[in-house]
């Protein structure tokens, strides 16, 4: 059997004919295996969804209880679908995120979904799984991406709070994963003031807490009884889209920060009108991608969404078989 017979790209997403299921399909399908809860990977409207219990919870929070015809939570063990054995392993990306190992006739392909290698107390660490084909994301797959330590980036935010005690600090974060990670990093750096959050972050922060992740004191950022001055020198987290809106005008002379792996490139920083870039990423940087490929040492690497060309090139230079899957539908911007 060739790897392509086990799993191959289709317009719906990666498809496994022997198991008759798709992985992270971008259009409604009969059976979907979902790596994690980010909206471009986890869509509503499939017949059946198989995912980790946390990913299913997150999908229910986002789309409501009827987001799929039927759902099944995976545990640690293998699951048979027709003749195919699948198994979910932690991916270290966000809470509930998993890599999906698909095995049939002695061939194993691991679709890693989105993943990272740095430690993150808000989710389980990535687990390297030996395999024949490793399917890696390529969001930050260029040698210019080398993410600094997240605690150094958080230190920049703390310094700015000291330098500009009269200004509110608005930190742009995505609701799933990044928000909770930034809060956790602040707490671990000893920041124990109340942190204010935009309404769009509330339910997912509550959910993280229900899963045992300590986030400290959080308060809604929009309360009518608080004056503008109240927010001077405070940290307010919100989705970046909110900062352009009227919502941001309630805060005094805000310093606009954004926590994202994209913040390493000046043009991206300027494009977003960011004054305080925080390079904090939920994805691997270049050296982590390479480290992972070398560590897993698969006989073939498939590369999807992001800068596929560069990673395929690196594989060629290092005598590794690699190809780009050209899957469409996965967002570049959303981390």
């Amino acid at each position, binding site marked *: 059997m060739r790897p392509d017979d086990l799993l191959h790209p289709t317009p719906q997403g990666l498809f496994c004919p022997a198991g008759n299921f798709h992985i992270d399909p971008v259009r409604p399908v009969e059976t979907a295996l979902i790596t994690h809860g980010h909206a471009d990977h986890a869509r509503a409207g499939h017949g059946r969804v198989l995912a980790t219990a946390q990913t299913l919870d997150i999908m229910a929070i986002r789309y409501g209880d009827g987001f799929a015809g039927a759902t099944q939570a995976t545990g640690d063990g293998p699951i048979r679908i027709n003749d195919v054995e699948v198994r979910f392993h932690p991916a270290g990306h966000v809470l509930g995120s998993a890599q999906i190992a698909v095995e049939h006739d002695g061939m194993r392909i691991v679709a890693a979904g989105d993943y990272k290698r740095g430690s993150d107390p808000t989710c389980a660490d990535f687990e390297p799984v030996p395999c024949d084909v490793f399917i890696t994301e390529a969001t930050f797959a*260029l*040698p*210019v*991406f*080398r993410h600094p330590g997240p605690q150094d980036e958080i230190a920049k935010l703390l310094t700015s709070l000291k330098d500009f005690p009269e200004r509110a600090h608005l930190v742009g974060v995505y609701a799933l994963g990044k928000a909770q990670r930034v809060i956790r990093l602040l707490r671990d750096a000893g920041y124990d003031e109340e942190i204010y959050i935009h309404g769009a972050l509330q339910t997912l922060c509550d959910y993280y807490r229900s899963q045992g992740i300590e986030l400290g004191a959080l308060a809604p950022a929009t309360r009518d009884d608080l004056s503008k001055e109240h927010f001077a020198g405070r940290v307010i987290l919100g989705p970046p889209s909110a900062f352009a809106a009227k919502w941001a005008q309630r805060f005094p002379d805000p310093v606009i920060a954004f926590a994202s792996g994209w913040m*390493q*490139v*000046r*043009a*991206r*920083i*300027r*494009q977003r*009108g*960011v*004054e*305080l*870039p925080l390079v904090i990423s939920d994805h691997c940087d270049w050296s982590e991608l390479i480290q992972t490929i070398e560590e897993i040492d698969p006989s073939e690497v498939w590369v999807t969404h992001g*800068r596929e*060309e*560069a990673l395929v*090139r*690196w594989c060629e*230079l290092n005598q590794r078989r690699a190809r780009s899957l*050209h899957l*469409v539908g996965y967002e*570049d*911007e959303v981390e």
Partner: protein
Amino acid sequence: MKAFSELLDRLVLTPSRNGKLRLLEDYFASVPDPDRGYGLAAITRDLDLRSVKPAMLRGLVAERFDEELFRLSYDYVGDLAETISLIWEGPGGGTRPLSQVVEQLNAASRSDAPALISGMLDRFGPAERYALLKLATGGMRVGVSSRLAKQALARFGDVDVTEIEELWHGLDPPYVSLFAWLDGQGPKPAQAAASPFRPVMLASPLAEAELETLRPQDFMAEWKWDGIRVQAASQDGVRRLYSRTGDDISAAFPDVIGDMDFDGAIDGELLVRKGDAIAPFSDLQQRLNRKTVSKAKLQAFPAFIRAYDLLHEGAENLRPLPFAKRRERLEDFAGHLPSGRFDLSPTIPFKDWAELAEARAAPPDPVIEGVMLKRLDSIYVPGRPKGPWFKWKRDPFIIDAVLMYAQRGHGKRSSFYSDYTFGVWTRDGELVPVGKAYFGFTDEELRQIDKFVRDNTRERFGPVRSVRAEPDFGLVLEVAFEGLNRSKRHKSGVAMRFPRISRLRWDKPPHEADRIETLEALLPD
């Protein structure tokens, strides 16, 4: 170097003018001589470093990195210095003062330079590497105009900015005497430069509705020529040619400088001749942004100045005189100049606005961009005052074309399909590309087009996607452009000048877009 690299990064990210001024003032106040002067010169691009060519940097990169990986990175980042600063790996662990970096760069011979630069890159962190490379390649662009830097100096020393502007061309980095004066530790430096730059007066765009409020008899009209605005100053035997921002561009125009046999300062348009005619802007471009110029270029693209105004004659400052008076003096003055190198901008006679509009619609020369209106009583003041001078540009040409290909943008737009190739219908009912545009739309429209491209991709070739473009399905773009030339390189046989998207015609079916015949009719004979 650390303070300097931090200043650069913060200047770039600070949107407000006041914020930038504050950063510069803080830098002048906290960094000692001579570093602050070199930092200032780097920002105003007055630092004359023995420049390092991008080719040399590419050579350094080629020794360490795969060419293809570097190309992909550069494509994404959109800036050579930034790409190298991010991709470089070194042991780090050593900075040094900016002044020392400048001195070492200046002292290094051509053959020593690569080793010097790569040694510094190895020792510096990413931000300092970026600053070093911007410094060494002379590509410093931090959103600070030379004028803003001078304003920061003025605020720092609590003096008037015109005092700084007038002194500026007599001063050299690291400006120790200037800083001593601004610190209150020394006397004001003497005006050392002959033929200094005089800050330029600019026109504001005319909204046609405004004409009703203006009286024709208060104004003089002349053509707006499509060259570059310059100031030719010649006093006490010193001859200088300045751009409108005060950059000294004398070295690129020895032909003009050689014929500046006068005592005064002329404001005019720099143009290039082609036989008896004025050459298009593309020919003038052959002479711009050069440190030196070859004999061949001098002969193929001879430059001349079409004079608009006279700012100084002998020791007399004419700027406080009304424009009508200055124009008389200019006509006299220009009569004595070598006619091949200097001529007088002709005025356009008109009785009322309708007559002028008619003249504007049929300009006598293709190198005319529109009409300038100047109040007869206007004194010459720096900047862009509202009211005394107007520019009334020619209307652009407009066609409807169909989006055919989209390419990922660079830098800031690298996540969007932002470069569009569009076409019109041939006689055989096929689309033929006629141009490419990457501006003219809002960020919101960019997102809409990007989505359309992603949803309707037919094929992908690297960063380019072909898009569905059929008679009944596709995206029609209204394209504005300034003119059309014949082109052998393009399949359509035409090349557009300054094309840009003027409107998205979501409402229009592609078969209603323009045909190639429409464009062919616009071609010059």
